[in-house]
């Protein structure tokens, strides 16, 4: 990803300093055999060399299908999993090397919002205890007498009635629970929020409420987001830059318009063309790239380009040479939106999302 961080980047990304820098991030889970003598016979290569940069105030979207490693990346960012290799630098400091008090200080600033608001909240704790629990670990943020007030403020911030502080999670709907999860994420006033599929479990009408809330909180608290999702439309809506993951690696990354309107990696193109578009008129003139087969097992990753087993362009070179994530040679001098990082030997631009006129505006936007 050297090209995006080192090169004089696009104006919107450059003024902010990088808050999070990830280089060569790897997570392998060993597969062992034997009881008396444990031998490692292989590894699940969940994340296999991921680099990216997150700037202050920015949203980086990570999309990919199940098993691509996006959630494992999220867990490593918040220190729920230890990386096998690689560095995660928060404001220049390598988080993976820290321990004790220094680690705790960093973790305070990187918080997570989980996917499933039904299982990520303890059913036996009140909302007040759930949101206030981070203060037990980081008492310096809120002295004891102050906590109840802080929690009520947080409930207000995420659009819940502060009087609900003594209720239990089951008394709330899915959307409201996700608001509780967000309030807990905000409790320590973090700078970075890692959100792993935060709206996937919600109904369409409620999804929009939560996305709007996240966007408002971002500007209010100057937050930086890593937004992980499988829904490409939602990721586009909220992200400034997008990384597309496949089988443990980022295969293409760029600004949202570069990825959605000028994708050059065949996997991104297939992914975009497979998304159902809510417009029946598009049915006839839309080209669908239907991939054959399933994603290979992460225990047995194909040689060379890991997408080649499902790629319609694959040639001999793809089995031999791992394509680097960089601006492809043919676009290096042309510039323009097609010149962004893409890990493909045969990258070419292909427009797969039909340009459409926006629907007429609705006027008022509910909360």
């Amino acid at each position, binding site marked *: 990803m050297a090209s995006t961080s080192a090169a004089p980047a696009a104006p919107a990304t450059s003024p902010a300093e990088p808050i999070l820098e990830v280089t060569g991030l790897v997570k392998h889970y060993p597969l062992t055999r034997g009881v008396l003598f444990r031998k490692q016979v292989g590894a699940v290569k969940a994340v296999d060399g991921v680099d990216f940069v997150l700037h202050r105030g920015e949203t980086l979207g990570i999309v990919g*299908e*199940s098993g691509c490693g996006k959630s494992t990346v999220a867990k490593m960012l918040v220190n729920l999993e230890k990386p096998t290799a690689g560095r995660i630098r928060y404001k220049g400091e390598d988080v993976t090397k820290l321990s004790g008090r220094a680690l705790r200080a960093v973790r305070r600033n990187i918080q997570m919002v989980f996917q499933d608001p039904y299982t990520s909240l303890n059913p036996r704790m009140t909302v007040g205890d759930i949101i206030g629990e981070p203060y037990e670990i980081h008492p310096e943020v809120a002295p004891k007498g102050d906590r109840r007030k802080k929690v009520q403020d947080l409930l207000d911030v995420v659009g819940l009635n502060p009087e609900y502080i003594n209720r239990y999670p089951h008394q709330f*709907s899915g*959307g*409201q629970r996700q608001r509780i999860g967000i309030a807990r994420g905000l409790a320590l006033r973090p700078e970075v929020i890692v959100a792993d599929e935060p709206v996937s479990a919600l*109904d*369409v*009408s*409620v*999804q*929009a*409420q939560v*996305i*709007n809330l996240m*966007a408002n909180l971002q500007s209010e608290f100057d937050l930086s987001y890593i937004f992980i999702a*499988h*829904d*490409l*439309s*939602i990721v*586009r*809506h*909220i992200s400034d830059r997008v990384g597309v993951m496949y089988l443990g690696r980022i295969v293409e990354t760029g600004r*949202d*318009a570069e990825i*959605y309107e000028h994708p050059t990696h065949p996997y991104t193109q*297939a*992914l*975009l*063309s*497979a*998304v*159902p*578009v*809510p*417009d*029946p*008129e*598009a*049915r006839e003139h839309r080209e*669908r790239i*239907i*991939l*054959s087969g*399933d*994603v290979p097992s992460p225990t047995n990753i194909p040689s060379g380009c890991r997408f080649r087993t499902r790629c319609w362009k694959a040639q001999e070179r793809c089995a031999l040479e791992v394509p680097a994530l960089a601006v492809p040679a043919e676009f290096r001098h042309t510039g323009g939106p097609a010149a962004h990082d893409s890990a493909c030997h045969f990258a070419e631009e292909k427009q797969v*999302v*039909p*340009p*459409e006129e*926006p*629907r007429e505006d*609705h006027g*008022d*936007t*509910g*909360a």
Partner: protein
Amino acid sequence: MLLEVHDLHVEFRTRDGIAKAVNGVTYGVDAGETLAVLGESGSGKSVTAQAVMGILDTPPGRITGGRILFQGRDLLTLKEEERRKVRGAEMAMIFQDALSSLNPVLSVGDQLGEMFVVHRGMSRKDARAKAVELMDRVRIPAAKERVRQYPHQFSGGMRQRIMIAMAMALEPALIIADEPTTALDVTVQAQVMELLAELQRELHMGLILITHDLGVVADVADRIAVMYAGRIVESAPVHDIYKAPAHPYTRGLLDSIPRLDQKGQELYAIKGLPPNLMHIPPGCAFHPRCPMAQDVCRTDEPPLYEVEEERGSACHFWRECLHG
């Protein structure tokens, strides 16, 4: 019409009271046609389908009114034994979660073959051969070898193909697919939807597609019925509804989805939450969330107004919605 549901009412008796899950649903499907039933969780879309299939849990569920005509017969008057002959052979269902709908301790060959043993009285050997044929048909590679495998040995997409094979086995006239691709990744979802559409064309089946995904609906449906709080609030040919919705709920749904082709500003969000089915608001059930609600909406339940031929909207102000 292949299937006609008339004024269907279903309620559930629970400890806390009676939940009115379906409150007068009317829809129909023709052979070869795809009807999409769109709604959020709790809208009654799956319960209606379960009533049609005859797999509603009774109790706690109870059909309190309405008729379900399938090829002219009223299914609700049939004896359970006759009903069982219809189910599987003449109408079949595809469920969302293939892993929990398939039996984990039986090989997929046994489960597919069972259809032929039970309904057609075939020998186990012939049934096994049929199972291989079906797996080929839904394009599962190496069907001959894989017929002996168990559900957990297949990927999510492959399992959903097995579900489809099972539903197709006896070439039914009607298939009900309840969120068939919701649990799948987009690239696999595209494969599965394509397969389903192809088989539907081949066998000229009626298809009821239950979904919450406006994108999937736009891709495959001929007609669409939008459900809210157990009622159909809008019913129309698919092209009309996306061009100009005639119900504020439909409009709100369409406006609240982020678009692939544009980076949005703030999304339109329908305020509030879907109603509790034990306390459905009086008048129009949508009025507490509706930006267009007037006094009449709080008191009078709107009938399904005829907007155009074969197009209805249950909104007192459908004209304003359609043109505003």
